[in-house]
């Protein structure tokens, strides 16, 4: 069971870090420092230039050469890393704003743990904020997909015959149609000056709703087998109406499948957000999202020379692996209960 605790602990830790992105990140993700595009990650030192040891780790300021392409450390001034310092204001929760950051360095020093992007924005803060947007997108899309999928799957499974065939054929059609245009149409129909994040979440909801086909097929299988269970017939025996039977007996059966589907769908929808950003339907500038950051990573010159821009890919992999582990945990648990 220790492995299960480790995975759940990791997931909770990840989500806490993402939720408290404002507090955990040293800088506001959108502030640009135009003098430092694509600066390499700040190296945290403990020994200074002439070998003396310092208790508090410190950072040197970065200075770029004439062409702005090569950066070097200006060892003249040391900037100690301080904990719980004041920095850019951020809203922790709607209504709660604060400007205390977990760690930071006095200006003009900069502690960009993952370096900076094309506009000189701190990649570490952007990865945290970006993860928040992407994970919310993944959760929201999965929620929509599972809600519609379960509803239609239960409908198909419960009253079989014509309804069942119609729903299943619709699933086939939904899987084949290119949904890109629906997204374009929805994006065009939305008023332009709508807040970009709201527009983005609406798009993600549409993406989710369209993805109902696969979960509905699985739920239908479960409902078909649940319907045959003796205790469902017993409930019918003392006159329980179909809706009651659905709510109390049949739908709870599907929770196992829904959990495993969620574990698979969330990373998939986060990935879909990458394609959305690639086609310009992602979250608008200067908002950060894993998808838009991966979009910049997919340019050859970034890939070839700025290795620290891989941070969003690493973040995406960590989140996805955690969710996949959760799914296999679900499988393991279900098998134990069954045997």
């Amino acid at each position: 069971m220790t492995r299960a605790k480790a995975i759940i602990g990791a997931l909770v830790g990840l989500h806490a870090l993402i939720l408290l992105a404002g507090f955990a990140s040293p800088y506001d993700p959108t502030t640009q420092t135009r003098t430092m595009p694509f600066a390499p990650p700040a190296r945290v030192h403990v020994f200074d230039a002439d070998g003396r040891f310092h208790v508090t780790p410190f950072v040197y300021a970065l200075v770029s050469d004439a062409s702005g392409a090569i950066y070097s450390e200006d060892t003249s001034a040391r900037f100690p890393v301080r904990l719980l310092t004041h920095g850019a204001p951020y809203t922790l929760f709607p209504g709660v704003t604060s400007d205390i950051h977990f760690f930071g360095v006095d200006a003009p020093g900069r502690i960009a743990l993952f370096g900076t992007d094309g506009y000189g924005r701190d990649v570490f803060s952007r990865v945290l904020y970006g993860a928040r947007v992407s994970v919310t997108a993944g959760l929201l899309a999965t929620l929509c997909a599972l809600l519609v999928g379960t509803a239609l799957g239960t409908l198909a499974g419960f009253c079989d015959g014509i309804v069942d065939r119609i729903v299943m054929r619709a699933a086939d059609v939904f899987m084949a149609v290119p949904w890109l245009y629906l997204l374009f149409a929805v994006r065009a129909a939305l008023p332009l000056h709508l807040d970009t994040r709201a527009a983005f979440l609406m798009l993600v909801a549409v993406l989710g709703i369209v993805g109902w086909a696969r979960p509905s097929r699985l739920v239908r299988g479960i409902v078909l087998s649940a319907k045959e269970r003796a205790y469902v017939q017993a409930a019918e025996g003392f006159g329980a109406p179909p809706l009651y039977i659905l709510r109390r007996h049949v739908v709870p059966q599907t929770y196992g499948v829904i959990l495993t589907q969620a574990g698979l769908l969330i990373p998939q929808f986060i990935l879909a957000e990458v394609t959305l950003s690639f086609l310009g339907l992602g979250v608008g500038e200067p908002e950060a999202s894993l998808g838009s950051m991966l979009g910049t990573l997919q340019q050859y010159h970034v890939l070839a020379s700025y290795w620290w821009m891989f941070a969003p890919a690493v973040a995406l992999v960590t989140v996805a692996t955690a969710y996949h582990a959760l799914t296999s945990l679900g499988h393991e648990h279900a098998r134990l209960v069954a045997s």
Partner: protein
Amino acid sequence: MFIFEVEGLTVCYAAARGRRAVDGVSFALGAGEILGVSGPSGCGKSTMALALIGLLPETAQVSGAIRLRGRDLRTCSEREHAAIRGADVGIIFQESALALNPLRTIGAQIADVVCAHARGDRQSARDRVLTTMTDVGLGDDLDRIYDSYPHELSGGQRQRVLIAQAIVNRPAVVIADEPTASLDASVRQDVLDRMRTLSARQGTSFILISHSADVLSSTAHRVIEMRDGRLATAAARRTPAPRPRASVSFASVGSSALAIEIRGAEKVHAQRRLLSKRHFVKALDSVDLRIERGRTLGLTGPSGCGKSTLARCLAGLDALDAGEIRIDGRRVATRRGRDRQMHRNQVQLIFQDSAAALNPRFTVHEAIVEPMVVQRASTTAERRLRVLELLDHVGLPADALTMRPGELSGGERQRVAIARALATHPRVLILDEAFSGLDVETRQRIIGVLQGLQTTDGLAYLCISHDIDLLAELASEIALMRNGRIVGEQAGALMGSMRVPA
């Protein structure tokens, strides 16, 4: 010299927080001896069987010694153990439907066991398989069965195939886990006789695990009792326990009005095959049945004769194609809503497999209170009282309320099902094979409970079972059904001697 010895066998599952499924079991088995192992379900019989053959899942910790001809199986490697399984130690599993590979023919599966141990070619293996099949009673049209698939055989035939697999390599010891549980009386008898001839003729020793006392008493040389993982007493051959011939005097309560009557019932089942067109089977063919208040009617017949269909129609789960049902003399239309609701309250059905009849997620309280919740007829306080009253009625402790079906034994689960059925003050209870999964003591206790309820509330019972002795004990009359028709009615006492054709 003992052929098979077990010493201090202990098995505990990591997931069950160290609760020991098998605790320090030791016994020895001579050549050609049939050792019976009995005990209530959930006492660790099946776990021990798996431990003996070395097939427990990784999550189980096993300790103690299992010696075959003096050689401890626990010390040999998986490869050696595999060589022994099926050759020196055979095993017969309980769920005949599941233990066979649905995608391979019967002959191939038995031949697989032969080829797994002997390098002979398929042809000599085929002859060996055919002879073994005749030994286990699959003699008539051998070739058809050889090439058919498991789902094309009846339950009895499948069980015989399992036995053939276990004995085809002439093992020294065969472990049989509830081999005859789901068989009809006649088939069971035949299987047990063949087992005895095998042990006599070939000197194969058997470990026969069963919950049914008369199976063990009629076959086993020696019976050991298991309770909660430990051995209770090792008794020599036990004379079958005298069956208390309870003189059932039915004090008729009030006028012996008709509790429930069904006349001219017709029911047709459409059997849909994936490819061929649908063809129809007459499940009920003009069935007439009457049960007076406070009396019990038995119903028996070969499997597939329509007993279950009749039970479902009586309980209002399925509608009749023709014919009518009267409860307390009043005709009940099978289609209209309000009538149908009243019909369902008054007639309750109790299923054979108590585990499946209760939702595993519900507590006992939720299960029993559910019918009342559905009818929205009473307040929560009244319901709570009613549940306690029902629990007491069926003889369950009050603290069982918060437990889940998984934590109850088979007997306790069946009693919860009965309590739930009584929640709607029914007039008739239909017991569809309600006792086949229970051991002797639990069965006696439940019969006592039912008889008590019958005398106090004047309930009418329709008891469906293939166990003639049980029906003779419980029911005043017994109806015999075949191919959807009632073919005869006998008074309870006379039924004892009648042999029911398979």
